[in-house]
């Protein structure tokens, strides 16, 4: 029975992983919607550049991304020092840094899903809304966004799952601090590195698998309900 109860260290890694992934997804969401909107609905010079920039984390090695973040936002780096001094925001060696790394690395997943969803919304509905007196922001909030909601959810779920598994960027940028930045993948890595840690690693791996399956099921259920709700 006791085998099914999580140890304090395991629970800590699990909760931290969930917290990092959730914050990463929610913080990136508004930016992802904005970027998707620009890519799906507007034409402007430099659109290809924005598209490439959004997809950069997909092709860049995570360790490189972590290194770049460290260079830019470390406590001694100009930007990192500025943020710490004026706003008290610290990313280096903190869980917020882990969330930031995860947010950036999973940003392309969110943008792609939202962009596809926005492109699938019939623009004729927006025209109808306009002729009924709805201004652009009103139309976006009451017609486009609700109809794109299933796509938003799909993007968020993918990003959340990917955030749970992020390793390279996190360990490079914010190191492997128990209770602060040691998420599940980092905990598994630590267990494997320590002598006699095989059993602990196996338990953590099982935990990760269970979490993934649970997430998939919840996402599927949520997507179905949402689609029914918006009449698709």
């Amino acid at each position: 029975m006791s085998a099914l109860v999580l140890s304090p260290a395991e629970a800590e890694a699990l909760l931290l992983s969930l917290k990092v992934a959730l914050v990463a997804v929610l913080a990136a969401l508004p930016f992802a919607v904005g970027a998707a909107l620009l890519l799906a609905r507007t034409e402007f010079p430099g659109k290809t550049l924005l598209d490439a920039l959004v997809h950069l984390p997909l092709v860049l090695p995570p360790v490189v991304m972590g290194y770049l973040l460290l260079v830019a936002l470390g406590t001694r780096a100009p930007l990192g020092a500025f943020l710490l001094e004026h706003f008290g925001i610290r990313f280096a060696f903190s869980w917020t840094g882990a969330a930031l790394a995860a947010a950036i690395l999973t940003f392309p997943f969110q943008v792609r899903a939202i962009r596809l969803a926005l492109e699938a919304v019939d623009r004729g509905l927006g025209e109808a809304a306009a002729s009924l007196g709805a201004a652009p922001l009103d139309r976006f909030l009451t017609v486009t966004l609700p109809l794109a909601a299933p796509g938003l959810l799909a993007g968020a779920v993918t990003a959340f799952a990917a955030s749970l598994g992020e390793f390279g960027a996190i360990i490079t940028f914010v190191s492997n601090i128990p209770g602060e930045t040691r998420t599940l993948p980092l905990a598994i890595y630590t267990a494997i590195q320590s002598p006699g840690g095989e059993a602990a690693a196996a338990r953590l791996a099982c935990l990760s698998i269970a979490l993934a399956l649970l997430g998939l099921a919840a996402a599927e259920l949520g997507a179905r309900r949402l689609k029914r709700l918006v009449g698709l």
Partner: protein
Amino acid sequence: MSLKIAIRLARGAFSLDVDFAAPSPGVTALFGPSGSGKTSLVHCVAGLARPREGRIALGGEVFLDSEARIFVPAHARGCACVFQDARLFPHLGVDGNLRYGARRAKAPPTEEEIAGVVDLLGLRPLLARRVRGLSGGERQRVALGRALLARPRLLLLDEPLASLDAARKEEILPHLESLARGARVPMLYVSHAIDEVARLADRVVVLTAGRVTAQGSVFEVLSSLDAGEALGAQGLGGVIAARHEAIDERHALSALAFDGGRLLVPRLAQPLGSEVRIRIDARDVTLALGEPAGLSANNLLAAEIVALRRAGAGTVDVRLACGSARLVARVTSLSAERLGLAPGLGVTAIVKSVTVAGR
């Protein structure tokens, strides 16, 4: 107050160059074959497209003036649209769709007024329904109600019946007719179906390849020989406003009177005294000199020839004055020569078939 439209628009090989006025209140039909620019024109009026050159004004309010750099966006124009494909919001349900425009109206309709429109269009049984399960006819009725409840200053109808079969059309046309008769909201009605135009319109603007080729009252334009080509083979004919004068129960006939004579049609459901609009296709009128005898046709009208025009190989269109009404007869050029048809000649028009519109 009237809607004045003068715009120039080029899209690839297609160009639109129009200048006309649609009086208000009233129903102005934009008639023309597909590809003639009707929908582009409606989009310009609605503010969904922006022509590079032109001016559009409703009464004193300027929607577009390219010289003065005025462009009022669609949502601020108060021109509600009913599209061919309904465009209902799938996530809102019937009630939510109906209230979408109502909530955003400058002077939102009261609950009583909303109930009035719901009942006018027979939407009460649909209120709790989702959009997804609605039939084509139901969708268009909801779309029409949604547009009306936005309290538009101008109602734009872009082929609202084109995607429906004949039975579904009959389900909606009476509603449109009662709206047109009420004429509280000026309407711009786009259609390529002549029967709809004859039933609903006060004025007709005929559009051919992006140009206005004829315009005027529905009675004038649909019987105009010059518009014959643009109207097409089914289009040309007379439209008459007549009064339901008497009913002959024994023969199941109704008598319709107008200042050019009387017509007998199969018994009508409309009450006696009501005004009825009828259309007589040019191909359903035969001409005779003098008073012919021994005919099975019941409807003979004394008429005077106004004009003639060759319609094609071997056919001639003859425009007739019958009181203030105008009719057209399509006859062979042989008979035209044989009878010596010429302007000013008195003839008898033998009407074989009459289409009665509900109004």
